[in-house]
Each structure stands twice: as C-alpha cells, then as structure tokens.
C-alpha cells in the first residue's frame, strides 16, 4: 500500500512537470494534438473507404469494424498520452549514458524510464476516440453489460499492448541504435490495428501465441459482442502476466550489458 502510494505521488509529480513543460512550448502542444487528429482521421477513413465497396469483412459489418477501430484508437490514445515518448527516451538514455540518473533513483527503474513523460495535450483529445467508441458502439448494438465492461477492457488491452512494446524495447540493450527496434515495435503495433480474422492461419497463430499483438484488440472486442468468446480474453490476461515476467528477466540481463557511456 505504501509502495503504491509512493508511485502515485511520483506520478503526480511527473504530471505536474509535464504540464509545466508543455505550457512553455505552446506550438509543440498544438502540433502534438494535430498528429493525433490526423492519425485518427486516416485510420477511420481508410476502413470506411473500403466499406464503400464491400458489405462485410469477415464476420463484421461496417459498424462493428469501425467499433473495433475505435477501440484500438482508444488504446493508441492512452499509449500516445502516457508511454509513447518513453521508448525514444530510453534509447537516447542508453546511448548517452543518461540512464544513470534513473538507475540511481530509489524507485523501480522501469517506471521513470517509460512513464515519466506524459503528453497533457493528448489528454484533451480523449473525446475523439471515446466519442467514436460510443457512437459505433450504439450502432453496433452493444449490450448494457458490455458498456460497463468497455472501460475496463480498454485498460486491460492497453496493459498488454504496453507490455509487449516494453519487452521489445528491452532489445535496445543489445542493439543500442534504436530506429530499427522502434520501427519494428510500431509495425507490430500496426498489425494489431486489424482484427485477427484478416490474417491467414499461420500468421494468426504466430501473432496470437508467440508475439500476441493480435489479441490486444480482437479478444476484448469479440468478447463485448459475444460473451461466449471468452477464451481469447483469458489468454490476454495470461499473456500480461507472462510478459511482466519476461520484462523482468530481460531487464536484469540487459542491465548487466549496460556500459553507461560517459560524456
């Protein structure tokens, strides 16, 4: 309990610092918001344009599919707002040796590495993905229980998405240069933006059980539509635990390799 309180306290300070920083770079603030808006628009419109020419893709109608896209946007939104900066920071800190200071702080080091940058600008945009989620949810005819579950499932899916990406980021201990890894990380992220049934058998299995990016969105959304499909969701929870453990293992091994470039 005391530990949890400490982390909350520290996080409050992160938020205050990021807010202070954002307010001194106003142009930056606006541009970050624009990035998100462009991204949301292009994601939704791409799918919408395809549906201009087909009635269903797999089992899903336009509304269901766009609900899925919105679900992934809600995860992306949390991701952009809370973590996205961390991967790039991490690689910079590894290369320059600036990681030293974070290693010295008496707190779980992964916390400051991945969570000390918050984008307050993105917080303003919360209405966009959630507005879409509600709009397409209504159209897709979500049940009352599903509405209650929705926020929780977004958080669970977000947790898995972040765990996968942090584990991939651990590879930077070995590669040092980061563009390739970050590129790979983002590509995997974009794989999860399409429902798992569009992937052929082998790919679907691989990205469900080995690198489980496909269940991030597909599992919870399928469950929201039909409670009998609960197994993938259970897999999501299991994978979260597995990835927590893997991150811990790789973090420890990676740290032994850290050379802390000096000046």
């Amino acid at each position, binding site marked *: 309990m005391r530990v949890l309180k400490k982390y909350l306290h520290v996080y409050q300070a992160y938020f205050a610092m990021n807010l202070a920083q954002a307010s001194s*770079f106003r*142009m*930056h603030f606006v*541009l*970050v918001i*624009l*990035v998100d808006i*462009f*991204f949301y628009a*292009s994601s939704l*419109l*791409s799918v919408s*344009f*395809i549906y*201009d*020419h*087909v*009635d*269903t*893709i*797999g089992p899903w109608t336009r509304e269901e599919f766009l609900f899925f896209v919105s679900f992934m946007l809600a995860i992306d939104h949390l991701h952009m707002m809370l973590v996205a900066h961390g991967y790039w920071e991490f690689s910079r800190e590894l290369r320059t040796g600036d990681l030293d200071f974070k290693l010295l702080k008496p707190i779980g080091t992964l916390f400051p590495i991945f969570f000390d940058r918050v984008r307050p600008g993105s917080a303003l945009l919360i209405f966009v993905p959630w507005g879409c989620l509600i709009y397409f949810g209504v159209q897709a005819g979500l049940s009352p229980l599903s509405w209650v579950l929705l926020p929780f499932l977004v958080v669970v899916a977000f947790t898995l998405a972040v765990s996968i990406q942090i584990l991939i980021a651990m590879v930077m201990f*070995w*590669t*040092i*240069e*980061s*563009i*390739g*890894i970050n*590129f*790979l990380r983002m*590509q995997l992220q*974009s*794989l999860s933006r*399409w429902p798992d*049934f*569009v*992937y*052929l058998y082998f*790919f679907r299995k691989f990205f469900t059980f080995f690198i489980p990016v496909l269940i991030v969105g597909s599992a919870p959304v399928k469950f929201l539509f039909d409670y009998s499909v609960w197994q993938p969701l259970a897999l999501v929870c299991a994978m979260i635990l597995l990835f927590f453990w893997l991150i811990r293992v790789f973090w420890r091994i990676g740290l032994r390799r850290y050379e802390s470039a000096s000046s």
Partner: protein
Amino acid sequence: MTSLQREASKWLSTMQIGITNQMAYKINFLLMIIGPALVFFLIKYNLWVSIYSLEGITEIKGYTLEAMIGYQAWVLLVELLAKTSNGRNLAEDIRLGRVTTYLIYPFDFWKFHSASFLGTQVVQCVIFSLTFVIVLFAGLIEPAGVFQFLAGVGFALLVGILWYSVQFFVGMMAFWLEETWMLRVIFQITAAFLSGAIIPLELYPSWLVQVLDFTPFPYMTFYPIKVFQGEYSGSLLEGYLILFFWIFVIMMFARFALRRGMRLYTAAGM
C-alpha cells in the same frame, strides 16, 4: 584537380559517410530492410486476401485480388525508392547547435545533407533491386516492359528527391521549434493516406481524388505505380514536369527557411 573534381570528391566522400552510417548498426539495418516487406506481407497481403475470399468478391473497382496484391507490391517497391530520408539528423544538427560547424566547413549544410541523402539512395537502390527480383519471381507483379520500368524508376527516384525536399523543409523548422518530429509524423500520415499507399485511389470518393490532383500527394505513390504498370493515363513528360515543379517549389521554401534560420541563429550568437 579542377574545382569541379574537387567538389565531386567532397560529394562522394560525404555519400560514403552516409552509406557507412546507414550500415553501422547491423540489426538496425536489417530491420529497416525487412520492415517494409514484413508490413506488406503481414498486413496488406492478409487483409486483401481475407476481404476478397471471406466474401467471395471477385472485383472491387476493377481490381481483382491479384491486381490488388500487385498494386500493394508496387507500393512496397516505390516506397523503397521514394520515402527514404527522414530528416531526423538534420533537425538534430540544428537543435544541438552543430549548424555552426557547417558555417566553417567548405561544404555547406545543404550540400552535406543532400550528399548523405544520395548515399542512402545508393543503398536503397540495391535493396530495391533485390526486393524487385524477389517480388517478380514470387509472381506478385507483372512489369509492363523495360521502358515502363525505367520510366517508373526515374519517377520514383524523383519522388525520393521530392520527399527529401519536404523532409529538409520540415527539418528547418528546428530553428524555430523545440521538436520537429510531430511535423514529420503529420506529413507521413497524410502522405500515406492521400498518396494511395494504403488503398488505391480508385477506391476513394471521386470528389476527393479530384481535389488531390492539385496536390503532390498522388504523385508520391499512386502515379509512380501507374507508370510502372504502364497504365499512367496522362503524358509521362507532363508527370515529370509536375514533379520537378513541386520539387522546385518546396526546395525554394526549404532554402529560404535555411537562410532565415541561419540568420536567426547567427544573430542570436549561439
């Protein structure tokens, strides 16, 4: 040595540095090569196969499944030549104050970055050739002919220069902004969406396509593909001229921004 030879040797050795830098980190380099191909096979191939097969559709706006896969394979190829520079180093040079060194060098900032860009393009051409051979033998594409192929490569390389000019221009904003990655990402998202890199422009609402014709976007992916496929409807010369026009316009803006930025920079005495 004539002054021309001397200048050429400067360009050449800078290009060499560009190539060396690109390959300095093994895994990084491999991922950058494999990455785009991976995306193609994983997302696009799967997505379109499932759209067509799950519904038993044979044709969307004139695209059969094979044509759609072919189109996406061409997107992969065109992007290998066209969307290579990312302007990150450039912005970093400015932000970390390394611009000053170029004021002293006998090889200015613009030349240095242009030469390293050309260096990267050399490596990209090799990757392009390899990918082309693989995609060709996999039977994913049917080139229209040698002339169309060469015209297409030329077109795509020009787009590469256009892309570089844009990145250069965006990088210049580092004189005024703390960070420029947002501008780059906005441009990347917009370009991917409006250039036909995600879905062919034929599938877009026709009013949107008409508007887009007045922008450089369709020239970045859609038209180069049409040239490769021998289906480019307009005159090829006109297409090249339009590309040159856009390169010229954006380069002018970029050089203007460079001059203004430098003045700001030196005036601030940093």
